[in-house]
Every structure is written in C-alpha cells, then in structure tokens.
C-alpha cells in the first residue's frame, strides 16, 4: 500500500470518533451543517462609497509606507513616473506588456526588460525598478493584488528594489472577500500559478522587533493610480 493510502486510512480510522466543535460547548451545530456566510461582517469596516474606500486605501498605504499617488489622467501618471525616473536616476527597468504599461512606459525612454517573455533573471536583478499592472487594489488592507499573469511573472514585483504599480481607479475593490470573489470570477477555470497579496514594501522586524523596509523584496512600493 502506498503512503498516501496509509495516511488516508489512518485519518479515516481516526475520524470514526467525532470531535466537539470549539466554542459551542457540545450543543451547537457544526459549521459544515449550515452554509457559512461571508466573513465580511466580522472584518474591519470599509466605507460604503467609492470615495470613502479610496480614502481608506490611501490611509492604509500611508501606514504601510507605500507611496500612493492618485491622478486624474494618464498624462499626469506619465509625468509622475518620469519624475521618479529622474529622482532615482533609473538606468534600466523591468516591465511587461499591458494596457496601462504600454500607455505609460514608453515615455520613460529607458531600456525595458520584458518579463512576460523569456528573460534572464540576472538582468532583472540589475534593473532599478519593476513596473507592473495589478488585478486589484484592496481598500480594506491597502493591498495590491497581483498574479503572475497580470503582473509580468513571479519575479518582477519582488526582485528589483522598487516596485511601481500602475492601476486604474476602477480596479479598487472594497475588501478581502471582494478580492477573492474577483479572483474566482476572473480565473476560476484556470488560475495563474501565483497569486500574491502585496501589502506594503518588503519589511522585517527580526532584529529587536524594529521595522526595517526592504528585507529581501523591494524597499519601495509606489502605486500610481489614475
């Protein structure tokens, strides 16, 4: 018999005796007996209107030390990314093809390493920034939701020292349950092999619990939204 069958056999044997559901003191119905409602009712509050949610995202991003920049037009967004290039003296950036990136990135006039085509990871490591799109922005937590399909693979959003996200305003979703619903709706038949909830730039507290940004991933996370 395979180990798989051994383990599953032991599990089935063990489960012949039932266990009490925690917190119900032996009286209540187990969770499986009734369909579970959305966890939304327990999670932190999110405002009802779009403007409240946008303000909440901005507040969360600020607390997370992410740089959230909101613009009225693609032109303004182009100016913003150009000033980042100048300020940080970018020589080379990583990116991928997409509606937003194609509209914004050419204005940089920099060599662009495309990571949605076969690429050399050493070259990506030498890039000053990784510019990607995303699947959604999550107001509740200040999170950028990416997949390797929407954001140029697995490494682009984590290997260069600065991750720049381009997003449209209508990509903002209220909360985590909405983000998972979006993933299901968009990908359920064929999920991207990586889905990542990015909540602020990389950090660590492993030395005396003092927060330091840029542990292994990007030190900076800029979200350009228009």
């Amino acid at each position, binding site marked *: 018999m*395979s*180990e*798989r069958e*051994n*383990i599953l056999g*032991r*599990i089935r*044997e*063990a*489960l012949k*005796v*039932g*266990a009490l*559901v925690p917190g119900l003191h032996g009286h209540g119905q*187990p*969770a499986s007996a009734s369909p*579970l409602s959305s*966890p*939304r009712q*327990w*999670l*932190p*509050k999110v405002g009802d209107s779009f403007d409240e949610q946008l303000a909440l995202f901005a507040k969360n991003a600020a607390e997370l030390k992410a740089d959230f920049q909101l613009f009225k037009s693609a032109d303004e967004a182009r100016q913003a990314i150009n000033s980042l290039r100048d300020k940080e003296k970018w020589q080379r950036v990583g990116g991928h093809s997409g509606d937003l990136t194609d509209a914004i990135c050419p204005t940089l006039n920099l060599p662009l390493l495309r*990571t949605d085509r076969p*690429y050399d*990871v*050493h070259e990506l490591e030498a890039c000053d920034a990784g510019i990607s799109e995303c699947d959604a922005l999550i107001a509740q*937590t200040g999170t950028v939701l990416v997949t*390797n399909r929407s954001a140029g*693979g697995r*490494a682009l959003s*984590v*290997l260069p020292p600065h991750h720049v996200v381009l997003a449209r305003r209508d990509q903002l979703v209220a*909360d*985590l*349950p909405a983000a*998972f619903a979006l993933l*299901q709706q968009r990908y359920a038949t064929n*999920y991207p*092999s*990586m*889905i*990542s*909830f*990015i*909540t602020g*730039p*990389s*950090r*660590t*507290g*492993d*030395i*005396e*619990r*003092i927060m330091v940004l*840029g*542990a*292994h*991933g990007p030190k900076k996370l800029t979200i350009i939204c228009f």
Partner: protein
Amino acid sequence: MSFVSQFKAQAQVMTGDLRHRKFIRRALRNYETVRDARKASFQDWPGARQRAAETKWQAVNHLDQHLEQFAAKLESRGTKVHWATTAAQAREIILKIVHDKQAKSVIKSKAMTSEEIHLNDALEHAGLNVVESDLGELIVQLRKETPYHIVFPSMHLTRDEISELFQRELGAAATNDPEELTMIARRALRKKYLTADIGITGANFAIAETGMISITENEGNARLTAALPKTMISLLGIEKVLPRMDDLALFLPLLATMGTGQQLTCYNTLYSGPRQPGETDGPEEWHVVLLDNHRTELLADAEQRDALHCIRCGACLNVCPIFRNVGGHTYGTTYSGPIGSVITPHLRGLQEWKHLSSASSLCGACTETCPVKIDLHHHLLQNRRNAAKQKPSFGEQTAFKLFAFAANRPTLWNFGMTMARIFQPLQGAVKGSMLDPAKAWTKTRDLPPIAPESFKAWWRNRK
C-alpha cells in the same frame, strides 16, 4: 540527562537571567499593543474567532476528503505530490529530489516542518549548501541554534549580538543599526537566490478547493524562493488544509493580527502549480510533500483533535508567562510555548515530554488568546491525566492516595492541621535549607503561619 532534567536546569538558568527576561517582556509588550489595536479594528473579533474555529474544525474533521481534493487539484496542474508518514520518509523524499536534480545548493524560506524533520542537517550531510533566507532564520542558522520562537526566530538576540555574528560569519563591518544589519543579510542572500538549484518552502494554508498553498511572510524571501530556483519543494503538515480559497479572506488577517499585530503581512501568496504554459518564470518542477509525523495519532485523540487547528501564529507563546520567563530554547522542542507543550507529547512521546504539561500554572491565557479556540490549557491537564494513568509515579500516587485518605477522614485531617500548627515553628529553624520539608517553596518564598484558630474552630466556638 533526561529531557525533564534538562528542562529544569535550563529553566533555572533562564529565570535567573533578568536581562533576558526584561528584553523578552519588552518585545512582547510591544506586540500586545499592536495586536490589540488590530483586534479592535475588526467589527466583531469574537465572531471572527468563532468562525475561524468552526472552519478549522470542518477542515480537520473531513481531513481525508480535503487532502484528496487538494492533491488531485495540484496533480492536475503538474505538481508532484508526495506523502510521508515519518520524518525519515520526508527527508528521503526530499533528498531523492535533490539527488535527481544533481543539486548543489538549496535556498529555504521559513518552514517549521523542516525544523521538525531536521531537514537542514540531512541536506548538509548529503553535501549540499543550505541557506535560510528569512532574516531571523538566517541568524539562528549562522549561530547553529534552533528558532527561539515559531514566528520570531531570533527575538532573543540583541542587535549587538547579531552584529558580532555577521562580522564573524559574513565578514561584515561592525554596526548596530538594524537597517544596516538587514542590508548586510540582503546583500549576502541576493546571490544565493540567483544561483540556488532548489528552493524549499513551507506553507501556512493548503486550499483543498483549488489545490493551492498559501505562504504568509513579510520579507519577500519566500516569493523569491518560489520564483527563481528551477525546482521548488514545499513541505507541509497534513493539518494545514482549509476547505475553500475564500476562507483566506478571514484567515490571512487573523494570522497577521495574532502573529505580528499587522492587518496583513506584506506578502500573502498562493501557489497552484509550477510554471504553466505561457508563463515566463517560476520553477519548472514543484514537489509538495505532505507530512504526517504523528499528526494522525493526534487526530485519533478526539479530545485533543482541535490542537490540529493550530495556524502557528505564535499568539499563545506570546502571552504565556512560562514562555516569557524561561524562553523558547528551554523547551527543547520544535514547537515551544503552550501549543508545543500540548502537541510534543503526541509527536515525541508522552512519558518523555509530559513535564512540559506539568510546567504550567494552567492560567489559561493561551486558550483565551488562541484565534482558532484551541482548548490549550485543558489539554495540558488532560496530558497530565493521561500520563498519570499510563504510568503513575509511585511517589506522587502514594502521596495523593494518603492525601485522599486523610481528606476523607475529617478527624484525621483536623488532627494533621493541629500537628502542623504545633510543628510549624520548628520549620522556621531550617527554612529554605535542605532539611526543610517545604524547601521547594521556602527557598524563595515565606510560608504563611498556620492560624491559631482555624475557620472550623471559629465556627464551632460561635455556635
């Protein structure tokens, strides 16, 4: 030396280290502050906790179905799923993959399961270069120590100790700036990510519905470990399952709140396969190793089955007054603190590890904080009962039999109290010394005098 003697000797040393106790207490007080702020941001924390407990109950009490679904989904997308009953089997599976790939170097992101099966030793013994990429894990690896805490592996060390370590092991310049120290590690590890043949990760959750693992981290090291090496191996305990992907909408913030006092950690990443057609990076091969290692024995104990609900957030360690005063290494186990004291007897033997269940005042702070409502301190009590039933200590059992004998004979009991009252002044002469029958108490504490008139005597006299 037996495990219990080692534990007592180490506890003696650590409780005497006032600097250490203060250092840990300060760190955990800061944790409490941020944790409480996060808890307060939930609309209904008790409701969230109850829902989480019920979801894990559902996951664990239908574990066979969930694991089959999980494995089938993963396999359908090209992931190789392995099953290991024992730690040795898990090591063999991983060593075989490493050997087949003719790998020379391994980069690891934090995985307590790998500590549990002593994977690093096995890999190094097989001639591989193994590097831990989580900063805290790297620090304890360089010190040749085990993690001090399941979430904060290096929380016992000061920046100066870490600086000395980096000077010695990495040839770094002296600095006591946490940021500079972090950058030293960042630079040292960058090359390793790019050149490692194999990336090894753990997992925080295994989603049955969609065949995904979820990894929670802050540093980005797991993201890199799962992006750059050609082969990826993930080692996880079979209890990690959650039924549905959207259960994470609750579990991710729950874990972050209780683990580190964050709303969400920086990266929460779901992996459902190796590089798929049309994808440009990520591992060509992904192996998922499902580890039993006595978990099915714990599952068979219906009374303590909820210990398998554990999401390894570390919250019970953080509030435990025992952990705070003896520190993580004193336990001598992979999992320390209350959850470690509950499960280690199941994982490594009741008689050898029952002392961890006795080394508790049963204060219940752990149970009160646990986000999935594991009845931790009552399980400690049950472990004591099971241990005494299986193999009673002659001395203790005799003492309690005598105690019960006297307690059931009020006249004898009261006579004993009278004798104690008469002889207590004599005890003063030997207080705290080897001759003192109560020396375990009186070495550090005074005993109250036995009252000249007991309550019973007072009651009788007033009638």
